[in-house]
């Protein structure tokens, strides 16, 4: 993964978030305030347009800037969480102009760790982590199969993880008020997490012919 990949990946994610803005709003309205679709589309479009206009090659610096751009544009709870994740990735990627798949996995793991530390949460609590965590695990487990297969597996794991949130009881944020009543409902944040890995997967599947380790 190089800066040019990052640019493309974020433009894929941004497009998916924009297309699903209303869907994310609806999901968040189930027991939140409904701003999820707005903040996700705003945050990713801001980052995508920042990336279009930068020449930064250092992946660490790139992700650090993405993190603060994202936080500026979307400082809602989930926006801040994503921005924290990017910050975690930035620290690991600092100084690198290229990262191979295991380095990317490393960075993602650090990002998730940072989210868990700062947001005081872990998988199983009906949040975005329930998509991100299994996705990164799958990416790691499949990394030897090449980037296309690995990101596909990650995306599928994110989707399954998100679907799984239906069975979970919320612990964080406004959703936690509703306790058992929200069993059966999909967590909007986890769907956003799925979309992130959908963007990554689609970028690699549409642009990489061979399954090289990029």
């Amino acid at each position, binding site marked *: 993964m190089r800066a040019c990949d990052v640019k493309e990946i974020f433009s894929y994610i941004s497009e998916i978030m924009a297309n699903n803005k209303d869907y994310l709003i609806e999901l968040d309205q189930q027991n939140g*305030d409904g*701003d999820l679709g707005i903040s996700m589309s705003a945050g990713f479009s801001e980052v995508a347009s920042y990336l279009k206009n930068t020449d930064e090659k250092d992946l660490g610096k790139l992700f650090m800037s993405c993190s603060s751009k994202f936080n500026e544009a979307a400082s809602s709870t989930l926006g801040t969480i994503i921005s924290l994740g990017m910050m975690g990735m930035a620290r690991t990627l600092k100084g690198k102009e290229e990262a191979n798949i295991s380095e990317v996995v490393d960075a993602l793991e650090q990002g998730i760790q940072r989210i868990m530390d700062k947001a005081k949460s872990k998988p199983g609590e009906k949040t975005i982590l329930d998509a991100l965590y299994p996705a990164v695990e799958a990416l790691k487990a499949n990394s030897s199969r090449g980037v296309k297969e690995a990101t596909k597996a990650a995306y599928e794991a994110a989707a399954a993880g998100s679907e799984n949130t239906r069975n979970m009881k919320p612990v964080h944020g406004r959703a936690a008020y*509703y306790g058992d009543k929200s069993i059966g409902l999909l967590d909007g944040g986890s769907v956003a997490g799925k979309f992130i890995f959908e963007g990554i997967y689609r970028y690699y599947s549409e642009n990489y012919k061979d399954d090289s380790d990029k």
Partner: protein
Amino acid sequence: MKKIINKPENFVDEVMEGIILAYGDKVKFLNGDKRILLSNYPAKEGKVGIVTGGGSGHLPVFLGYVGQGMLDGCAIGNVFASPSSQKMADMIRACDRGSGVLCLYGNYGGDNMNFDMACEMVEFDGIETRTVRVKDDVASSPKETADKRRGVAGMVYAFKIAGAAAERMMTLDEVAAIAQKTVDNTRSMGVALSACIVPEVGKPTFSINEDEIEIGMGIHGEKGIEVRKMMTADEIAQTLLDRILEDMPLNSGDEVSVMVNGLGGTPLEELLIVYRKVHMMLAEKGISVYMPHIGEFATSMEMAGLSLTILKLDEQLKELLTSPANTPFYTNANKIPLK
């Protein structure tokens, strides 16, 4: 969507421009940034700074309390969304007079994480900060996990009292301790009769049947924790007060301040009818009311409904509540008891 607005995406900026056009002598933007409001009132050298932040759509919360004897600054985000940590950090820096800054805000995920980041950033520059999170909303979590409760209208009492403490040149630790005591002594509970519409979303977050009300709705227009058949004003007063007193028992002889806060769409007449019953129920228990606050202090745009806040007073809190405060949106000048 029936709102008196222009483009939904300009909602927050235009509100802020209106504020500066109307009250530009009393408040100002930080370097022209429409999301950071600072007090323009004269302030004593070396006074501890007090700042807050949070989403838009709750006027007068939060920025309406920036002024003299209350807050020094406020960073705001989009409707119901936290401001960024960068803006918070800029604001904290601007409000430090060398004695440190208290970050006093409602306990919400986004705000917590962003303020934490902001504090890390400014501590880098050697600015001391303390954090007190307001958690007065009884409905938002059971007593066992009271730490998860959110901040609602009760934060106005915390702003007022901490502001007065800072005005008296108390130290950062003292101001934080008084703010924390205020928070510990404050409980709120609300009901909604109708939902509200986030301008950029364009439709209500939830709908309430014509014959129902939601107990414990969220200040962002989130559904209540309990749907009940429509009740009389007296029943509403009783339901809210009971839930508060269950959580924070009071004794005969205690003195409290009572806030009956309209959420935006409810007429003042109805707030007074609810206040009447609350006052009578408290009086029956031998509890007296000092400086009641009846009006709109923390809203959710056009949401109909109200919240009840009880602040248990001691001599110190009472004195600080009484000391003068003036902002474009709040003053206690006409609330101080006669004689």
